[in-house]
């Protein structure tokens, strides 16, 4: 029944124009459609990826050889700070929200998101927030230069006036994220098709449900941190000012109470994506579905209890260090379960290696490497040597670039034929994968060595023994950056045209979006609930 409607929905929407998109630019400004808003989020994320990436290029250029050749230290610090902020809040998070918008209604058999007007608002806050943040680069005093972790008092007493723009921008991003999260929860809990019980939901939906709760729990904590900064800066409080009886280390506790769940916000949806792609191309159901759900929930709960492992050198009592060490290394258990489940899903499958599968396999291998270095960092005494070095930089880029970003790119290749009705160019997709994967390892793997050999992070210049690996890393960086410009070309080419995708798209694909919707799907996904087996 529903399949009939949706099958001709695409061609028919011109006759029923209240079902189709509005025309012109205003379509995008006023849209309440989950697909349009998903597209907006994804484009914003891509623009931010290129913006944040261009700042990474400045960083790698300055670090290409020892000595200060290109930028001043103050500007370098602005680059590292803005790179981090833009990539975390502008690229990775909006990309996942964009994927959630596009996919969750289609995956659970809903016509749209539960709260479409709020959906519009939560997107349109972001361009203003990032414009405001980016504009500080051109102001007197410059952009934030205190690291994306903005530790007080460097970000309060010692920061330029432009910091207030940063504070307001972070508030806006937080409001946007919380609204997006409320929308995801409301949609998943209220709008599932009959028969779609929680334990039948695709893992992407499950991971996003859990992520949304994490967002609602911790974005207000971040808002609290920046508000305390604001009152410290302007209204005479001393939350973080030791001279007034405050505590600079408390800032770090508050920040990481947000910050650690935040890193899981950036990786849990990735787990959902990989759990969709691997079974499709192994032509075998996901191994251990329920253990995957429980593992995700365990990771989310543990993420609230490990924050101070970012602070082993701040002078915590030894009992605190012991607790946070044990809790932290414990996270590798549910994370390991996930990796083992993926590997077992592939075992005795009938595998093919289309582009999305390549990115997913790249994810598993390199995310696991990032997980190993994470385990090493979690061992508190040795963290004395790793902390704040390039070893940490290598670690979190393995989990965020070859983890989170790889999953987003995998998701693009996996679902873009469904979204646009066009197959991407398989050859270009494979070139994109191999180019990126070689470059990203040339870029980040040597940074492990740099960190172990003693190179601190966030320095614009370094002593001569670090020269070789920095140069190699920079070469990898430029190549990786260029690969994502190539990706932009692939994206535009795919949107403009290509071989017509089938409704199923992939031989082994399962899920409502592949089984019950045409490619591309109609403007409103399911006007009637699909049958759920």
């Amino acid at each position, binding site marked *: 029944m529903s399949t009939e409607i949706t099958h001709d929905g695409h061609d028919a929407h011109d006759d029923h124009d209240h079902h189709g998109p509005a025309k012109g630019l205003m379509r995008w400004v006023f849209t309440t459609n989950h697909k349009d808003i998903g597209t907006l989020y994804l484009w914003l994320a891509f623009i931010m990826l290129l913006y944040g990436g261009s700042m990474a290029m400045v960083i790698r250029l300055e670090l290409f050889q020892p000595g200060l050749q290109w930028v001043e230290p103050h500007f370098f610090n602005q680059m590292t700070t803005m790179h981090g902020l833009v990539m975390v809040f502008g690229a990775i998070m909006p990309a996942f929200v964009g994927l959630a918008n596009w996919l969750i209604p289609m995956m659970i058999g809903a016509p749209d998101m539960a709260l479409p007007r709020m959906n519009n608002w939560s997107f349109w806050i972001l361009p203003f927030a990032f414009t405001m943040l980016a504009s500080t680069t051109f102001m007197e005093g410059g952009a934030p230069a205190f690291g994306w972790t903005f530790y007080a008092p460097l970000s309060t007493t010692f920061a330029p006036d432009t910091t207030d723009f940063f504070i307001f921008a972070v508030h806006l991003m937080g409001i946007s994220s919380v609204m997006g999260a409320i929308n995801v929860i409301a949609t998943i809990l209220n709008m599932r098709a009959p028969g779609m019980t929680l334990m039948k939901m695709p893992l992407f939906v499950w991971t996003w449900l859990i992520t949304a709760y994490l967002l609602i729990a911790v974005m207000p904590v971040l808002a609290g941190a920046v508000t305390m900064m604001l009152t410290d800066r302007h209204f005479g409080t001393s939350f973080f000012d030791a001279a007034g009886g405050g505590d600079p280390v408390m800032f770090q506790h508050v920040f990481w109470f947000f910050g650690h769940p935040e890193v899981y916000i950036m990786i849990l949806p990735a787990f959902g994506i990989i759990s969709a792609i691997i079974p499709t191309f192994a032509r075998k159901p996901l191994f251990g579905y329920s253990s995957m759900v429980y593992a995700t929930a365990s990771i989310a709960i543990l993420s609230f209890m490990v924050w101070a492992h970012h602070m082993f050198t701040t002078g915590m009592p030894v009992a605190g260090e012991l607790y946070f060490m044990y809790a932290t*290394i414990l996270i590798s258990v549910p994370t390991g379960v996930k990796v083992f489940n993926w*590997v077992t899903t592939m075992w005795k499958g009938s595998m093919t290696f289309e582009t999305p599968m390549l990115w997913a396999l790249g994810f598993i*291998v390199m995310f696991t490497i990032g997980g*190993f270095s994470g*385990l090493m960092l979690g061992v508190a005494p*040795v963290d004395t040597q790793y902390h704040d070095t390039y070893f940490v930089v290598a670690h979190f880029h393995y989990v965020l670039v070859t983890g989170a970003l790889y999953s987003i790119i995998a998701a693009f290749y996996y679902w873009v034929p469904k979204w646009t009705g066009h197959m991407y160019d398989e050859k270009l997709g494979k070139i994109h994968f191999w180019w990126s994967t070689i470059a990203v390892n040339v870029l980040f793997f040597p940074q492990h060595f740099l960190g172990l050999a003693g190179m601190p992070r966030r320095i614009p210049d370094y002593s001569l023994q670090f020269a*070789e690996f920095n140069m190699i890393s920079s070469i990898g960086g430029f190549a990786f950056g260029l690969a994502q410009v190539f990706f932009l070309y692939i994206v535009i080419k795919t949107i403009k045209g290509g071989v017509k995708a089938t409704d199923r798209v992939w031989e082994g694909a399962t899920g409502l979006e592949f089984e019950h919707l045409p490619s591309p799907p109609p403007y409103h996904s399911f006007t009637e609930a699909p049958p759920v087996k």
Partner: protein
Amino acid sequence: MIFNKLCRRFSVIVGGLVSMLSMSAARAEYELNMTQGVTPISRELYSLHMLVFWVCVVIGVVVFAAMAWSIIYHRKSKGAQAANFHESTTVEIIWTVVPLIILIGIAIPATGTLLDLEDAKTDADITVQVTGIQWKWKYTFVDDDVSFISSLAQSSRDVIKDPIGNENYLLEVDKPLVLPVGKKIRFLFHSNDVIHAWWVPELAVKQDSVPGFINDSWATIDEPGVYRGQCAELCGKDHGFMPIVVNAVSEPEYEAWLAGMKSEAAAAASAADQEWSMQDLLAKGETVYQANCAACHGPTGAGIPGAFPAMTGSAIATGAAEDHINIVVNGKTGSAMSAFKTQLNDVDIAAVITYERNSLGNSVGDIVQPSAIKNAR
């Protein structure tokens, strides 16, 4: 076969990288791994690091081998038929419990090492207070009343545009910290402004210096030598330019150094009682300015608009001398301007104020004598 093609591509890349590395090995030394260091703790950390590393390698080999096996043998192009198993509680329990046991195996030695690492309070022979200041370190030998500031050496500052060939570039200071070998040294960490972190890899000491707090750590250095480190916590513009040099020497050498520092301090105190000429103050002032003030106010006094005020034509540097003395001696609360009375002696402060008022584009014409600073303290 795609796989064979990929293998070939990989070997080309890896081969290229290896040859690149061996080429550079000829040009400069570099390390791939953590230092074993020169203290009992640093060696413990190294072996713990290697233990966790090898655990990761073994797990990685098993997991990636299983993956590779599937990728090679369970591919559709080889005619593999997909099985349909997708659940096994037993297997899930096994791969929850086995990693848990491995983690306990890591946690036990890690706990012991951590307790050793944190044992700074018992039986310290020498206590050194380390104060982080944007962007230099101040060392105070608590029991000996010796105190000095250590900042990036001029030899590094001079070649910042083209440092190739400069030995110990960015890892050289004007006054190194001298410590005796074989003694338990307790470090107390504190900060004057923002959070810094004092890190010397060979000593396995990395501890944040936090304003308003005193943290501690310790080291017993086994071998004489020069050990270099850097600030490890982003502390503003010149975070990358506040190195640490520890010169570990035998005990008699250390005692001699300590005595030398004391007589130097006494000489500086008597110099403060003399009248100084404008010329001498300007000459000394320039050195002090470049080492202590130029980082923010600029080598030519231009400052950084919006972040740090200019010296040239500033209301303070061209206004009443008392106000100028006051801000240099006591700092400005709520700003990055620190109180230099804790960092510089009377002569240095008098010289730098005189320099600022009569150079960098200013020409007030007055002389500030060390005695005026003494009174202002």
